């Protein structure tokens, strides 16, 4: 736990939850995104519909799911569909309003790498690959990325473009024919980055309590545009922290650090 009375994970989860609007249809990932969605449901957005890429629609997990296909996502769900339906009839059909992604690397234009560090044919580190990320970043109306700041995680250019950001080989999403808005916001442990709607560049949109813009810049591999005015986020409320700690992740599986 930090000196502020909450961990970076708790802080990121609260910030992510606040990005969600009531009634939205959200493609949920396991870990912090799942906690963020369920925190939003328990606070300002009771009407969220959670869809897990495993095929559970309208899940209301009665325990903390530890995998994307956890059986608790099925019991009491509104609908269970095949993976083909998930990607064709929900995602490609434009029904998913918000997608959550993470990544080993996120670059200046919001491109995400979850494939390889180093070259593709001779990788230093082989990462898991796209999973559903490439299509989520393409089709979700908007994508939220969650990642802790570090120079390694935020290079100017990713080693491999797994999931599309806002610019690829000099071309914009519109030029490439992508339906969704892509990674419009990156929720880090210190600040929120947001994509410039014209240039597609990730800029410093808001800092968390007691964070200075310089601290953010030091952990990002490109010259970070600072928005003016620069937003200041409100700290987590005691209510948000109570729900996270007492109800959603009481064993601190995801929220410890």
């Amino acid at each position: 736990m930090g000196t502020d009375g909450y961990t970076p994970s708790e802080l990121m989860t609260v910030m992510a939850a606040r990005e969600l609007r009531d009634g939205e249809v959200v493609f949920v990932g396991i870990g912090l995104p799942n906690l963020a969605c369920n925190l939003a449901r328990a606070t300002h957005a009771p009407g969220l519909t959670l869809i897990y890429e495993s095929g559970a629609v309208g899940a209301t997990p009665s325990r903390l799911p530890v995998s994307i296909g956890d059986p608790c996502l099925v019991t009491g769900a509104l609908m269970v569909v095949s993976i083909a339906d998930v990607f064709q009839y929900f995602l490609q059909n434009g029904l998913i309003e918000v997608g959550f992604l993470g990544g080993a690397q996120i670059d200046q234009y919001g491109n995400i790498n979850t494939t390889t560090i180093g070259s593709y044919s001779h990788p230093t580190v082989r990462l898991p690959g796209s999973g559903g990320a490439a299509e989520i970043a393409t089709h979700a109306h908007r994508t939220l990325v969650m990642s802790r700041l570090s120079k390694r995680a935020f290079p100017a250019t990713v080693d491999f473009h797994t999931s599309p950001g806002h610019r690829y080989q000099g071309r914009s999403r519109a030029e490439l024919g992508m339906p969704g808005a892509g990674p419009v916001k990156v929720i880090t442990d210190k600040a929120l980055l947001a994509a410039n709607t014209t240039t597609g560049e990730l800029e410093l949109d808001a800092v968390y309590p007691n964070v200075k813009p310089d601290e953010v810049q030091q952990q990002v591999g490109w010259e970070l545009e600072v928005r003016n005015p620069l937003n200041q986020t409100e700290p987590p409320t005691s209510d948000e922290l109570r729900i996270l700690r007492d109800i959603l992740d009481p064993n601190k599986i995801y929220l410890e650090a």
Partner: protein
Amino acid sequence: MSKVLPMRDAIATYVNDGDTVMIEGFTHLICFAAGHEIIRQGRKDLTLCRLTPDVVYDQMIAAGCARKLIFSWAGNPGAGSLHAFRRAVERVQGERLEIDEYSHFGMVVRIAAGAAHVPFGILRNYMGTDLPNVSSNIRRITCPFTGEQLAAVPALEPDVTIVHAQRADAKGNTQIWGLTGVQKEAAFAAKRVIVVVEQVVDEVIIRSDPNRTIIPGMIVDAVVAEPWGAHPSYVQGYYDRDNDFYLAWEGISRDPGRLQAYLDEWVFGVPDRKTYMARQPDLTDRLRSTSAVCEGVNYGY
């Protein structure tokens, strides 16, 4: 004409060296028992395919069964990496595991095209990613009506698909509930199908609720009755996922010596799944499902 076989005979008869093999399952219904039997029988040069190669494919790669992997996400979700896979791909000396890689959506479209027996499938995807640069199997196609550009991927038609399920009759009419993943498409796409079930039931049970049938017997070659055959994966209504084991795999697979010791004890060291379960007598009580039985519906007319 019952198709019920012991696992040993089903694998011996229907899985050959060099085959393209799909043991599907999206978290749910991953047939570890079949993977272990393939390892025991020493199958080689397999092309393994699956959206989410997880621990059982890591074990098969470690055991030397695989020549190639076709996949879209290779990790141990929430727990870490598949280290045998990573070693096989990252190695600097010796022959690397060949890989052919997509996103989930691309894999699904490949398998669905195989099930429908058309040579390719289409999706709106892969603009702005490097995936088409590293695969000759992601190409562009133009809509003959609108002129739009889409992605095309080739059909995937495995030699054999192995699907775990809750129940089937002796002819292979198979019912699944909970997450159905790509089990149906994987079965229809394959030349041969092995169904592994928690229970072989009378045909009357299947016929009482025909909307639950996912795979028709006419495409099934063998039915294996293998209770707990998906452990450490899970079967909705039968047993929970053994998350402790998935977490433990991170440590086991990171160390080639420990991984080999695991295979020696739990794969080569047991003749079958029954013995595997008998050696862990606490498992069944820890993981057996609670009851949440739904109401039936009326099929009358």
